[in-house]
């Protein structure tokens, strides 16, 4: 097995770790770097549980080669909070009971953060569009949509 060193920025901090040949970013982040917030749900790019941002664009980590993040900035749900201060989206998800099992939550929050970063005042339809790549089996989505709209419409502050 060959190993390749990867240097990149994770949630604002410089990181370096070895990736195995052909390793995807999800496996690399979880096993080599130790950020366990992105989850494996399908490995096929169809569930969104592994959503991370690469250079501020949401991507499915299971479909991205680890070596492709060399020199780039990766952001995950683990980096949403600023120290002990939670992201308003995290507050809104808690207040709205927008998580049950919690397995899709990290990916969902990253997708929502990416949406609001690009479009701070999305309509309900735009929120639906923004999370349409992220599956949730528990909630029926309504509380998630409502939580994101709470932030977009200023009802929840950090």
């Amino acid at each position, binding site marked *: 097995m060959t190993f390749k060193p990867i240097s990149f920025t994770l949630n604002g901090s410089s990181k370096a770790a070895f990736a195995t040949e052909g390793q995807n970013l999800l496996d690399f982040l979880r096993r080599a770097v130790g950020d366990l917030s992105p989850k494996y749900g399908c490995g096929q790019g169809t569930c969104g549980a592994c959503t991370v941002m690469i250079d501020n664009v949401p991507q499915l980590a299971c479909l991205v080669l680890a070596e492709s993040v060399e020199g780039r900035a990766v952001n995950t749900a683990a980096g949403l909070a600023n120290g002990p201060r939670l992201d308003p989206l995290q507050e809104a998800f808690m207040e709205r009971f927008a998580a049950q099992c919690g397995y899709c939550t990290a990916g969902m929050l990253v997708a929502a953060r990416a949406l609001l970063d690009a479009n701070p005042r999305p309509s309900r339809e735009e929120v639906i569009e923004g999370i349409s790549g992220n599956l949730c*089996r528990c909630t029926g989505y309504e509380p998630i949509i409502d939580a994101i709209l709470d932030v977009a419409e200023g009802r929840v502050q950090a």
Partner: protein
Amino acid sequence: MIRGNMVEFRKDIFADERDDNLNEIGKPTRRQDITGHVTGRSPFFDDHLFEGLLHLRCVRSPHHAARIRRIDTSAAQRMPGVMRILTGQDVPVNLNTLLSLLDFGIDDEPILSTERVRYKGEPVAAIIAETEAQARDAVAAVRVEWEVLPHVLDVEEAIKPGAPTVLDIYPGNKFVYHGKYDHQKLRLGDVEAAFREADHVIEGRYQMSPIEQAPIETCGAIAAPEQNGRYVCYTSTQALFFSLGTASKVLATPSSRLHFIGGTVGGGFGGKVDSIHEPLAILGTMLTGRPVKYAWDREEEMQVGAPRGAERWYLKDAVMNDGRILGRKFTGYFDSGAYTRLSSYAIIKGVGHLPGPYTIPNVHADVYCVYTNRTPATAMRGFGITGADFAIEAHMDKVADTIGMNPVELRILNAYRDGDMKAHRRLAKNCALIECCQVVAEKAGVKLSPEMQAASSRVGGGGARAHLPAFTATDEHGRVSGYKATNYARKGAKPPDLPGAPPMAQHVSHQASASAPPAPQHSPATPVPPGPPAPKRAGPIRFSSLSGFRRR
């Protein structure tokens, strides 16, 4: 009509039965686990890192039914990263049934099959490798010689004479209830008399589809050597002690040497009770001395992970012009797939639920647990009930339509009320079906007659409605012989040799093969893992058996 995603609590209804002045109960307190969920820190089974983690993947049958002539692992053994290959000979007790811990049913399912496969996707060997990719490659390199056998997929085809036998211990492809019948019966009153008396006899056939639980986290477990001869197992199980007990039995290892950790699970919906992953992950750890992860990928979760089984229901109602249902007859077929798992038990639950939430004086049900050559069925949200409710409530609509009655009023008219005798011969209490119907009708603008608006679950039940019918028609239809509850399932006991018995030779050979399967050739040979000898399971156990295979 009220619209939108509102939720209202109708505190006015049943208010006199509640004390609403409590400190913590009834409060909208935030979830204890919510901070972990939104920060990505909640520890699911796969969120535990181990140095040197190995990955286990299974070699699976491409056929619905086949005999295994030979498993050749020699090429796979030489593949990069392959640490160990397991076959059925490596599993200390390679035969189990999920509810055996409750003493329910006969062990019928190998952990890794050695002689025959009975569904597409059945595992016959397991590769343990350094990486998941290496395990996948090695799985593809295992050569299995198959002798394809005839198969059957439809429940009603499977119970016809001459259909291929799925499991030798159930020769008619039907589970045996109480050692007595090839189905579970429910009898109250006399439905045939009700059909003669009725203004309308209304029939229907309903098919509930197989459904995948589809939790976003797939099923899996990680096992690792702990200390002092113990093994730790992080698991996605829905039932910690079910899985621990299954692993203890299958691995012939006392529970005191197993440390199971779970409880934070990425959705289950019934699909995480089967305890498939824990035994093999721990066995892999025992044999390699290293941490081993066994988890399904999404495709396995969908196709070899047990679904909610399909159900087929035939209903026949005796109905009067005024909407009263005098009698209801069911014939039901649960598709258990290739092994029993939980289906036999689901049927008892389903039968206890019939005829739905209605007081019907004559009820008859014959419900069959049928084996077919498909992925075994297991629990899912609504276990044993969802399919029956689909049939009953679609049928109620047909009844309402036939007699020209408002469908909500038909339900209220026939709804069970406090004090009514139910078909399983217990009195109803704490009923609330009528009130639910009334609230929905009011919200949705469905006009109810004053009488239906005034109806109550607490009024009008009991009295004559509490009585068992003077006569209940019973029968011996589906009687089997040769099954005797007290000695059939006991390990080592031979089934009785009775005249007219089902082909017992098959039973004996299966039982014998359960303890010592004839080894198909496979290489290299693998020794049994270290550990104390299997604890003897004898004498009365925790739970008696509905199957009738009761240890007394």
